[in-house]
């Protein structure tokens, strides 16, 4: 019998999550890297394309025909589009890693199959969160800045972000319960 505390116990092995989860994690990291490279090489072309999309879609952007006002609106929309693409790059690198490490912990500590399945699902959905920033970029150009941002937040960023939070909370609960045994 030992008197070691929960913090002294170590496991000899670290579990591996299902291949679907591993695939999504690697793919999201790869897309994040690719997005960064594309953004760095094609930034001027992307800004020109975004400005052209705003000009071709004057209604949702509230363009009035006044050159000075329209230019401000166009600049704001192009800035929001570029910010969305940049956020995609940074978040994809992060959430891919979060999925890898968090799902590895799930595979190592969650003993019940239903719990593991639920946590894998939530964490994998959460890792797709950066795709919301791609939607954000395109929605801003399609619907205008305010409506586009709201669309991406309501339909993509909030649901996927909530899945990530719930998955991580579930993992924390699993770890806490495991520690008490």
């Amino acid at each position: 019998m030992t008197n070691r505390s929960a913090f002294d116990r170590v496991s000899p092995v670290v579990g591996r999550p299902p291949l679907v989860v591993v695939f999504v994690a690697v793919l999201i990291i790869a897309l994040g890297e690719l997005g960064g490279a594309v953004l760095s090489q094609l930034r001027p072309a992307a800004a020109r394309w975004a400005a052209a999309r705003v000009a071709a879609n004057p209604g949702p952007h509230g363009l009035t025909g006044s050159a000075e006002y329209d230019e401000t609106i166009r600049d704001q929309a192009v800035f929001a589009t570029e910010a969305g693409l940049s956020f995609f790059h940074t978040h994809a690198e992060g959430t891919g890693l979060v999925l890898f490490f968090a799902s590895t912990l799930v595979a190592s500590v969650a003993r019940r199959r239903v719990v593991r399945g639920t946590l894998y699902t939530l964490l994998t959905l959460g890792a797709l969160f950066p795709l919301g920033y791609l939607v954000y970029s395109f929605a801003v150009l399609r619907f205008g800045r305010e409506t586009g941002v709201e669309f991406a937040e309501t339909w993509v960023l909030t649901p996927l972000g909530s899945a990530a939070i719930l998955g991580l909370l579930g993992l924390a609960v699993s770890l806490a319960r495991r520690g008490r045994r």
Partner: protein
Amino acid sequence: MDTWGDTWGDTWRLPPRAVLLAAVLLLVAAELGGASMSRYKLELARWARTGMLAHPDVHGLVGVRDVDERALDEALFRFDTGLRLFHMHAEGMALVVVATTTVAATLARTAVPRRTLIVLLTVGGVGYPLGYLIWSALIPSYGVERSKAIAEWLVWIPFGGATIVALLWLAALTAVRMVRR
């Protein structure tokens, strides 16, 4: 069968120790970089400014204080940005190296592809962030754009390219394993 929650008992294999050492050293460099940027901010800015004043042609300095100060401020801002990007990318890429080489070590069954993947992921991941450091270091002597082009061709494209190719290969390999199982 490898579906949600059915992998209890499957474990990760550790990548070679040299890979883990490289990733940890990159993490250390990132932390040191962040700390140095904060601790030696003034000294670094002074060093860069002295270097820029020693190369007036490169920075378009004309001897008129108002014009020169604006050019110097812009170059100093880029110098600082390069250091910050090194700090951030080095932290992120070190974790990417640990995660992705673990996947490669576990899922790539034959030796040659496994070694190739691990080398590409490690060399690419560790080398890429150093490009930001090189960019910053070269700015005083070569100017913002020329040093960016040097860093791009010497570091970002070869090392970033290696990482992207390896990540896409790893994603494809994981997908094939997933389908075959």
